[in-house]
């Protein structure tokens, strides 16, 4: 496989997705969950811009990406706020422990 521009971006998308999913699989800490979710979303944003470029609708891809960034920021903020609340209530950020606590 030649390292053309397109292939480099594709590799970037797939590896970001891989890191994100792997992170979700192994993390227990809620703040780290928010972080890996961000990585996943970055892969998606990159994919939007990329698909806009290859399909010739660069503007469309970029505007969707901008929208996703806004929505994703809100997700991050709410997620982190929840993490803070969880830490205050349960004294831990460990996801499995919280679910066992809830019975």
């Amino acid at each position, binding site marked *: 496989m030649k390292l053309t521009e397109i292939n480099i971006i594709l590799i970037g998308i797939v590896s970001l997705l891989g890191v994100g*999913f792997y992170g*979700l*699989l192994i*993390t*227990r800490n809620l703040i780290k*969950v928010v972080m890996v979710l961000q990585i996943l979303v970055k892969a998606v944003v990159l994919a939007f811009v990329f698909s806009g470029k290859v399909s010739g609708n660069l503007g469309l891809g970029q505007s969707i990406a901008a929208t996703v960034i806004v929505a994703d920021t809100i997700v991050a903020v709410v997620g982190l706020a929840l993490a803070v609340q969880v830490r205050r209530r349960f004294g831990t950020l460990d*996801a*499995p422990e919280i*679910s066992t606590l809830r019975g």
Partner: protein
Amino acid sequence: MANILILLIIGFPWLGALIVWLIGDARPKTQHTLAVAFSLLSGISSLILLAFINSQPAIDLSLGTSFGNLTFTPDGLAVSLTVIATVVGSLAVLFSVDYMRGEAQLGRYYFMVLFFIGAMAGLVLSGNLLFTFFFWEITALCSYGLISFYNDDPKAVAGGIKALIITQVGGVGLLAGALISYANLGSFQISELLGRADTIPTAALSFIAFSFLIAAAAKSAQFPFHTWLPDAMEAPTPISALIHAATMVNAGIYLLARFYPAFESVPGWKTAVILVGVTSALITAFMALTATDLKRALAYSTVSQLGYMVYAIGAGGVLASQFHLFSHAVFKALLFLTAGSVIHAVGTRDMRRMGGLGAKMPFARNVFIIGALALAGIPIFNGFWSKELILEVGLEHSPMWAYALMLLGAGLTAFYTFRMTWMVFFGTPRETLHIHPIGLAMKISLAVLSIGTFTTWLLFGGLNGILSTSLPFHEIEAESTLEMIKAVSFAPATWFALLVVTLGLGLFFAFGRKFALSESPAWLSTLTESSFGFEPVNRFVVSLVSNGAEKLRATQTGQLNWNILAIVGALLVVLAALVWGGAL
């Protein structure tokens, strides 16, 4: 005019359902009155609709391109069933005034009953398969709600859930058939399916025919789905009468009768229908022989009589099946409501504890005997004429073995009917039971129904007339009542049947009275208790599902990481399918 009447027939009960429910349970008297008024209005509208029978849709509402038009067609088949549903239904409501007096939550009760009656009228009048399916499901929901009406009784709740689940199998069959027909015809109109059935490929048409047969069997409690109806006996008795005589179980017979012209050429379909009918009629007749619960014995007899109707359709006798349905609706409603008044009076359903009640309840005894004679197929009563008509069709158009088994069924019917009557009303009292008097509303509805049991067979010519003129796809010969009487009286089938019925009666008077009270033979009661091996099958399915669900619970950890693993795994499967599926 017909369009307004159809709207009134469905609208009155549904509007009444809402109003009775909104009035609240604090005013039971108003609730009783309004429920009776709305159901009677609907019954009267459907009687007027008899004058406007037409094979063309009376209401044709366009709903866009995807669902087809919402049509209601007041043809003979639809209107005769509407009359049965609304008139017998309103008599059951009238009966409820006495039966349900003092019960809590009348609003819920009447809501379900009226909603049920309206939905049944819609189901038979609808000319669009998709809406037939909607109404079909509403009746399933209402039957569930009514069977489980006493929702603090676990048996009633279990019976309701069983009815719901089993009739859902039928609902899936109906929907699958309707969708396949839509895929082939591009329309949900029933007239399209009937008129253009020969353009559908054979495989698809067989699929539709057999899924409709499954739907009908599940709804009408036919073999192998017959197990839900006896458990539905936990419902209040007017509901049993409503489900058995007026609404629910007739829907399956209606479906078979409606689509008979489209399916009669499907190879094996008619034989399958005959097989279903014969099996149901016979095994439930045996079960009725050993039943000790009055309502259960009646429930088994319903399944058995419905088996006769299914058998008649399999033999090509759509008219005979509809005629028997009509007679059966009247005399079975009578039997159920009388049983209800007896149960209401003595407070038990166990026939072993009754006995000798006839002297104390002469009115109930007399009307029950009228119903029982009709059920047994004794001449003059309406059950005789319609059952003979079915057996006559059967002798001409069905295999010999099927006819012989149905004759045997007629003998068994006479036997178990007299056993039932004798156990309840005759003999010496086995227990001193405190007896409440029968109310006036009860007496009125019983009197109307017993007059009907004597006379409805005279309406044969009328039923035949509306069926033969308004069903373009069914081939029904016009025949007047007088011609029918002649034909039945001189048919060999009648004399065979009378012989067998007399034999059944003779056997009852020779051995039956001893048999009724002693324990029945062990092999027979084992067989009947397990519904001829179908109750264990049901239990196996239930345990399979619940055990499977219990095992699968282990996968629901509620932990994020496992869920992500499943998502990634599913993603990989989808990717693989895309990659290799595209290559194939």
